[in-house]
């Protein structure tokens, strides 16, 4: 089936009455929209704090001792950045899936697979980085 035929099959009126296919696709898109907006609201607050923090921290250059001096044993810092990482791991993959979906005809499973891999990788790498900065 060509890309054009796939697109027509997906958007044909009769396909919209089915429980599977486009109806569940719309439901999934709505859920993804919801989670991206909720994570965006969390991120908006986190990024403001993060930007203020990095503008303050880079003055006079960065050293590992300076960074770790601020973060080691600082569990409030750890909790804040753990929330930040989780919100990133939700927000960024959904955004990437949207971009893939909008720029290629094959919206759907392949975009979600790539997004899921990115999300899990970001979550694991981000949380281990936070753990490293706080508990090392």
């Amino acid at each position, binding site marked *: 089936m060509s890309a054009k035929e796939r697109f027509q099959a997906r958007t044909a009126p009769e396909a919209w009455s089915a429980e599977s296919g486009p109806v569940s696709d719309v439901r999934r898109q709505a859920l993804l929209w919801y989670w991206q*907006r909720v994570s965006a609201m969390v991120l908006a607050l986190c990024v403001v704090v993060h930007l203020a923090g990095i503008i303050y921290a880079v003055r006079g250059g960065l050293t590992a001792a300076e960074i770790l001096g601020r973060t080691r044993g600082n569990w409030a810092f750890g909790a804040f950045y753990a929330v930040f990482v989780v919100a990133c791991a939700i927000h960024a993959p959904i955004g990437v899936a949207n971009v893939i979906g909008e720029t290629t005809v094959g919206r759907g499973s392949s975009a979600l697979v790539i997004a899921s891999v990115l999300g899990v990788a970001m979550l694991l790498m981000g949380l281990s980085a936070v753990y490293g900065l706080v508990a090392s």
Partner: protein
Amino acid sequence: MIRTSDYRARMHPGYWAFAVHRVSGLALAVFLPVHFWALGLGLQGEAALDGFLRVTDNAMFRLGEWGLVVLLAAHLTCGVRLLLIEFAPWSGPRKNLIAWAMGGAIAVGLAFALALIG
């Protein structure tokens, strides 16, 4: 018919705000795993993190850092603009929001540049 390119529709501040939001978002999605990896060096101790910081302590990386901060600020302000459009009970033209978004990102970029060279 799916229109894939329409020059006139793109010569609009709303399209440029969309483009800035999208490009900054993609760049941040690529950068974040690298950022997490670099910070994860803290797990290996102070020396590993210091080694990385020494490698990045040059003008090219500083410029890159500045670019990333501007992209983060731009993604934030464009995102807040979208949230206001979708959730705030305001109506009418919202081009001022685009000006606020871009102005905010530039202001953050200037503040970071001052902190970086200061």
